């Protein structure tokens, strides 16, 4: 049967959902999760399985019949996040008293993870979900904080999965892109690697 394992480490949640149809829908309650959520799709045996040669590729012929007890993973896909790295880094909050047209980005490790709170006024807040430019502006601000948050050899940077993922991404682009502990680190460049800047022709502000 198809199976998808759902994990939210921050709330110590992990569970498996299964189905037999050709389409699987995985749901969770927002009140049970916080921070990053991971999904691992795969196939699990729902009963003891014995596969003979006719059902399998020739590469298995030396070890046939193939047997697996109930509950064994036959196939596991790659781990998928339910949010992009950029989405995981930013949290937009409504700031009633904020001056119109301004955003303020501040680090927020109150959750124990690398995250930035973006304080926006009520007018901008309405566009948070639809406007990529706003998201990218906030990302530039967030990336500007990284040298301050993660000094060289800071163990917190090694423990934080988002920081690790960000480091891996940027390291793969070296020497064109520098890490936050380098003099030539460029927050705008890093932000637009995470979320490339382009103008959508269907942007409602056009025309």
């Amino acid at each position, binding site marked *: 049967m198809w199976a998808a394992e759902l994990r939210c480490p*921050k709330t110590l949640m*992990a569970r498996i959902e299964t189905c037999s149809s050709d389409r699987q829908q995985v749901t969770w309650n927002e009140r*049970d999760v916080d921070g990053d959520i*991971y999904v691992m799709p795969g196939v*699990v045996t729902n009963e003891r399985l014995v596969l003979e040669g006719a059902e399998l590729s020739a590469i298995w012929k030396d070890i046939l019949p193939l047997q697996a*007890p109930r*509950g064994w993973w036959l196939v596991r896909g790659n781990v998928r996040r339910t949010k992009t790295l950029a989405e995981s880094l930013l949290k937009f909050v409504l700031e009633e008293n904020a001056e119109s047209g301004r955003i303020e980005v501040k*680090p927020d490790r109150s959750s124990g993870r690398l995250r930035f709170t973006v304080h926006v006024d009520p007018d901008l807040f309405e566009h948070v979900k639809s406007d990529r430019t706003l998201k990218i502006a906030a990302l530039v601000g967030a990336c500007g904080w990284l040298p301050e948050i993660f000094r060289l050899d800071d*163990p917190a940077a090694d423990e934080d999965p988002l920081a690790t993922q960000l480091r891996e991404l940027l390291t793969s682009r070296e020497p064109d892109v520098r890490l936050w502990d380098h003099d030539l680190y460029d927050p705008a460049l890093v932000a637009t690697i995470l979320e490339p800047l382009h103008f959508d022709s269907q942007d409602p502000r056009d025309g």
Partner: protein
Amino acid sequence: MDRHLLERTGSRFDEWQRGIIFQSTRHGKWTAADPRITNPIRKRQEELQAAISAGAHALSAYLRKKLQISQGELGAPRFPRPRLTPREFQDPPLELEEELGKAWIGLRTSLTSQPLFWLLCHIDWLEQGRFDVTGHHLAEAFTAGHGDTKREARTRNFLRRTSGLPVARGNTSVFSDCLMARSWWRYHLADQVEKVTAGRVRRRTAHRVLHTNRPAWEELIMRSLRRITVINQPRARAAIVHQLASRLESRGHIDKKDVQGITLVFARQGLRRSFEHTSWEDLTGGSRTTPSSATT
């Protein structure tokens, strides 16, 4: 509690915690003697200590000011006892944890995993007089303990106990250091163990396992959060607690090495099997079945 309040206040909480402790990794190894760095931190620490010494109302006013929260109830869960002594607060016995856990059973994990949620609860409880209200008793409850002759250590003790210290200790801190949060999580997980095993492992037994040894609890939490997240599958955790309970019964104690050994076994098994579809007997060591031809 209003989630918007948590979201709005998160960055202020972070800023306050970061500004009130000295971190060589952040400030630089050679800045411990630099007054430009240490003087502002010292002043903030003294301000906190003064608020604690002045009693519950002064302390809650101090915290509200730092977090920029106006007056009014914050929606903390009802405290089941009129008041906690400093000793009960610092090291809640099993019976007290059960009492707290039962009273707060409806709390959702999306809140209880957040350090700021617990700090806001402490502000409410301070204002309701749930702790001994004099400055002397508050200091004993919140700041006394390891290294408490130093201002930095007293400050860190306060931050750890009332919310956890995520800026320095990461996301395990709320589970390990914040005493009320730790009590809630132990009870919650013990309750989950009883439910998922249909009573094969009693809640009291599971709770005793989670309560008996602090390093063992911290190890279990650290592995569940960071290293072996597959053990958060409820049946896996229940089987781990069951095995720890057997050791506790036979030897009279468990320690973090027991947790390391058992969780490692489950980490390996989790690569190959779904714990949700494995029989309880297999999970608890009754069978060591392996697929005959699975060699990958």
